[in-house]
């Protein structure tokens, strides 16, 4: 406990130092929302890795593999494959077309106020649905790791993220993510080497031991994901949901051009992908070395499998090495949460300050200096709201919200984004249709499903993406057809395509 707190205090001091440094360099809107688009591909790649790997990835994948075998490995590959979609379809067009938010793209395509409002709704719903379980998870995790109470843990995480975002904007958020990614990857590399040295550098032995210990069914799919359609829904949610997550996609605004955005995706695919691959090895090792019963005894969901494994490998409970590694991994887990919630707070504040207040309410007539202060104030409000929701969420099953966030991102934000970028006839009616049908069907189906209603579920799937994603596209197409042709919009499409593919903006 003392070691965890000690290491964590060091990490916290570093991030506060970063925020102080970043705050002095954050004056314009471009600084605040996009770190003045000055990052290199490698920097953004690390930051993307820090942004995309939540505690669910850092701790959860290993735990799932330890307890449920192959299903954990399934969970881990999806988030890497998802970047193929982002790389091929979204990253470069995003960089070329937008400035600060997801809403920027649809705004420059449609140039209508209603479409902007639809995209703001998509961003805010996804971000809050993602933020609330992160805060609740932070409360549980920090309590488990440090012993402070749930409420104080949520408040501590919330205040830290408010400080990073409100003072340091995107620059501080980015460097918090980079620090976290470096720590996470180092912890992963150390644990990997320690595991391999135990099995004479032959990972196949881990499979053999696991099979001997837990029979062949442990290495088969279906131990965790019982419904086959849920499994496919989960996969679809990953591959198309990431591209609709505003807090990750806005990272592409922090680099100077599309080529750098492209290279940063390749970076994150190797950085985060290697880590995801390792979580499968960590999970098997945890099951082999620690035993599933011992993992379950500490946390039923297996979320502490990785810290416990690190402790075991470095000498076990009570030894100095063991406590040091446990403390290190635990502190990295907290840093992981901080990096993700900061990104969510920033991206929500950008949507509210830039898209809603400045562009919708004020028609874009707000001075840059003033906009920065508005965005800072909004980030404080968003942060306080997140703290409140996090405290309310204690003991409530928030798992449904995690599914909802990724499902809405895949079913509402992704169709609207793709159709905006690639379909000439797509119009404001389509934006509204796609957003509405995607969002409403996701929320409705998640609410009547087993995640919310348990045995009384009116509908069998926990994750509705397999139905709501096609509905989102259908809504986009139907809305477009019902609204009728918008000839001016279609004429502008050539100029828009030019901007999407080259970044050249014609006035």
């Amino acid at each position: 406990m003392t070691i965890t707190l000690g290491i964590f205090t060091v990490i916290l001091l570093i991030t506060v130092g970063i925020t102080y440094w970043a705050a002095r360099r954050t004056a314009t809107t471009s600084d605040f929302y996009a770190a003045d688009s000055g990052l290199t591909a490698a920097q953004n790649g690390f930051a993307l890795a820090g942004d995309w790997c939540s505690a669910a990835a850092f701790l959860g994948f290993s735990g799932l593999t330890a307890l449920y075998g192959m299903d954990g490995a399934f969970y881990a590959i999806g988030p890497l494959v998802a970047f193929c979609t982002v790389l091929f379809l979204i990253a470069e067009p995003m960089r070329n077309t937008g400035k600060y938010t997801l809403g920027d793209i649809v705004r420059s395509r449609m140039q209508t106020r209603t479409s902007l409002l639809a995209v703001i709704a998509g961003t805010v719903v996804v971000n809050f649905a993602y933020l609330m379980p992160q805060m609740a998870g932070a409360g549980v995790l920090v309590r488990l790791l440090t012993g402070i109470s749930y409420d104080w843990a949520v408040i501590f995480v919330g205040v830290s993220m408010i400080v990073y975002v409100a003072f340091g904007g995107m620059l501080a958020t980015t460097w918090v993510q980079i620090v976290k990614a470096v720590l996470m990857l180092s912890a992963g590399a150390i644990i990997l080497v320690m595991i391999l040295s135990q099995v004479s550098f032959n990972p196949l032995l881990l499979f053999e031991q696991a099979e001997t210990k837990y029979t062949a069914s442990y290495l088969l799919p279906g131990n965790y994901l019982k419904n086959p359609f849920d499994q496919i829904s989960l996969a679809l949610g990953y591959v198309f949901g990431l591209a609709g997550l505003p807090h990750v996609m806005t990272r592409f605004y922090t680099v100077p051009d599309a080529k750098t955005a492209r290279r940063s995706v390749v970076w994150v695919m190797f950085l985060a992908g290697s880590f995801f691959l390792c979580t499968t090895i960590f999970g098997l090792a945890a099951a082999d070395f620690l035993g599933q019963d011992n993992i379950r005894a500490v946390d039923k969901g297996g979320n502490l499998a990785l810290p416990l494994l690190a402790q075991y490998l470095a000498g076990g409970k009570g030894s100095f090495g063991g406590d040091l590694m446990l403390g290190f991994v635990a502190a990295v887990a907290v840093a992981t949460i901080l990096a993700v919630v900061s990104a969510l707070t920033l991206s929500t504040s950008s949507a509210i300050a830039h898209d809603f207040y400045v562009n919708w309410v004020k028609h874009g007539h707000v001075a840059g200096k003033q906009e920065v202060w508005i965005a800072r104030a909004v980030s404080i409000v968003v942060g306080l709201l997140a703290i409140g929701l996090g405290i309310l969420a204690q003991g409530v099953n928030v798992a449904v919200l995690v599914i909802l966030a990724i499902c809405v991102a895949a079913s509402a934000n992704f169709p609207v984004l793709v159709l905006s970028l690639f379909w000439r006839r797509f119009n404001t009616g389509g934006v509204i249709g796609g957003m509405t049908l995607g969002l409403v069907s996701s929320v409705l189906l998640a609410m009547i499903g087993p995640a919310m209603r348990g045995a009384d579920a009116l509908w069998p799937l926990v994750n509705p993406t397999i139905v709501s994603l096609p509905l989102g596209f259908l809504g986009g197409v139907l809305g477009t057809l019902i609204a009728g042709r918008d000839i001016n919009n279609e004429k502008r499409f050539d100029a828009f395509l030019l901007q999407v593919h080259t970044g050249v903006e014609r006035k």
Partner: protein
Amino acid sequence: MVHTRTSLEAAHASIRLLVEEKLRYLAPMTAIFLTCYIGLTALAAFAKPFVGLKVVGHVNLGFVLIAFNYVLSWGLAIAYGYIAQHKFDPLAARAAAASREAETVK
């Protein structure tokens, strides 16, 4: 004025060429990773015994296919980087130049 329209049209024409070129590479590449990943998921969901076939020692086909998906994603990412640099970027540069020319003439 006539010149303006020609340059602008040239810009738009090269953009259409670029989009076609992108589709020619990206459609099959997208089909590949979607088939491999969703296909793997479908196999795991509906063909458990097949996924459980032992391939190397105690490692079954499912884990081999998962490993293949990692390698495939990384391979496609590198391939995309290469194709974008050698096929897409020159076309994009040509379109941008044509458009800038149209701008200056106007």
